[in-house]
């Protein structure tokens, strides 16, 4: 389990992370979503015991990261994929993993390295120099490096940033595999579709933690998903009648109406009202509010 209480980090006058409190259960994939400079990297680094905590506390797997000795234990148990892969260009893929397996004091190093090469499909490039790898391969190697100590807790800082869609998909498959193996994953990202595809819960961070929810709940919470009703014919009488029945003024488009749906005014009621007002419907679509809308709304509300 990972638990923070009013976790705060300041750099001189700049507050990078302000009183952030959350809990992440074992086996959960938790997304930290936020714009640039939101404090995502700073939060991960504090959790990994890499940089100090200004105020508040963080406990990872029962260890208090503020204590240097316990922080070292945290580092032994977790895998970290930093924002930049930070690989050694002159080492080969295998040498890279071997080096980190040594630093992690992995027993039976050779077997562990072979396992990882296999699991992350790096085998065919095992003796290639890192400098010759594409970004996608490098990222996969950086992931393998993070897993060299078989961590139960994995921190991933923007694992698919700068990757093409195919490489991103491969990385997401690896993250799902981690979840299937019961790992706890904290994933930093500013990509919404990533959160939606991989995370059980998401925290929206902008220095402060603005919201915490399941991606779907967050999406549902976004209000006023508009229903688009296509009609054979639109006239002022119809618009007036619909407005009276629903108590809301529809937007008129070329070939129909756009009417906001809410929990108290579901799609079915909207359609019924249009039909009762004499409208002849050609199509009816409710645009599900996107996670992006939800996200932007949370940020907007916080800005007020």
């Amino acid at each position, binding site marked *: 389990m990972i638990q923070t209480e009013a976790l705060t980090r300041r750099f001189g006058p700049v507050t990078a992370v302000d009183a952030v409190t959350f809990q992440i259960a074992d086996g959960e994939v938790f997304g930290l979503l936020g714009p640039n400079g939101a404090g995502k990297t700073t939060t991960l680094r504090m959790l990994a015991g*890499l940089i100090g905590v200004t105020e508040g506390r963080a406990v990872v797997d029962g260890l208090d990261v503020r204590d240097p000795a316990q922080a070292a234990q945290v580092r032994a148990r977790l895998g*970290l994929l930093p924002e930049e892969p930070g*690989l050694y260009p002159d080492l080969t893929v295998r040498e890279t993993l071997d080096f980190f397996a040594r630093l992690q004091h992995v027993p039976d190093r050779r077997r562990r390295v072979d396992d990882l090469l296999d699991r992350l499909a790096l085998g065919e490039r095992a003796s290639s120099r890192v400098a010759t790898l594409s970004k996608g391969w490098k990222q996969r190697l950086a992931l393998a490096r993070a897993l060299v100590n078989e961590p139960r807790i994995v921190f991933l800082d923007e694992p698919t940033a700068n990757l093409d869609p195919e490489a991103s998909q491969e990385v997401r498959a690896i993250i799902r595999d981690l979840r299937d193996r019961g790992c706890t994953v904290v994933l930093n990202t500013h990509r919404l579709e990533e959160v939606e595809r991989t995370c059980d819960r998401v925290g929206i961070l902008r220095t402060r933690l603005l919201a915490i929810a399941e991606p779907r709940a967050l999406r549902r919470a976004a209000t006023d998903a508009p229903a688009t009703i296509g009609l054979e014919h639109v006239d002022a009488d119809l618009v007036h009648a619909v407005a009276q029945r629903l108590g809301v003024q529809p937007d008129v488009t070329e070939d129909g109406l756009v009417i906001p749906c809410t929990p108290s005014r579901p799609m079915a009621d909207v359609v019924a009202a249009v039909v009762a007002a004499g409208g002849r419907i050609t199509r009816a679509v409710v645009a599900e509010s996107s996670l992006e809308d939800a996200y932007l709304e949370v940020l907007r509300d916080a800005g007020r």
Partner: protein
Amino acid sequence: MRVDDVWTIARKDLRGAWQRRGIRNAIVLFPLVAAVALPRVIVFADERNGGLPPAVVPGLLQSFLFFFMIAITTLPTAIAAYSLVGEKVERSLEPMLATPVSVSSVLVGKMIAAVVPTLLSVWTASAVFMVLANRAVTPILGHGWFPQPETWLQLLVLMPLVALMTVNIDILVSARAGDVRSAQQIAGLTTLPFGAIYMAAEMGSLTLDAAMMLRMSAIVAAVAAGTFVVARRTFDREEILTRWS
């Protein structure tokens, strides 16, 4: 600090540095070329001047051996530019610091990687130089001249201390320098005082005897200790992650 971690890191940096042709050439060729060329200078001077007066030989040999101090101040910097600034530029320190390894292990591993090849190379070259120089001066003196007490002091005391001091300065410079070249240039300033002493000895305004070696060693030891304390403070997990950029 753990010995196995220190060795893991030193070994990686040693191999990495050795794979760079520029560094390999600097380590192997620079001291060896000097070791072979300097005795030739004696032979040449002896032939041209119709025989060197025996009285000038000791001063000449002392200053020539001191020439190797220049290698001692440049080689660690060549390696450290790769193993420290290189890592900084590649941002490869963060993954390493995310392991349980202690920063002392990292620091000492990197110091070893810079100091050990330097000393091995310069000691070998000095030995070659002394053998060849002895042979060159035997016609003049009737016997060889090396080693003298100050020779041992220079090789076994002053050289290791200067190598350590240079690495400490390299670490301090690496923390601030943005790229390999500027790090090398700034750290290259450590060569200046030794170059100046070499020139002074060459011109005869300074005698590189045992007392002189001891005095220099004391000063360098103080500077090495001071810079180590500051380097150790600079080489801190948080410091590296938040300031070294």
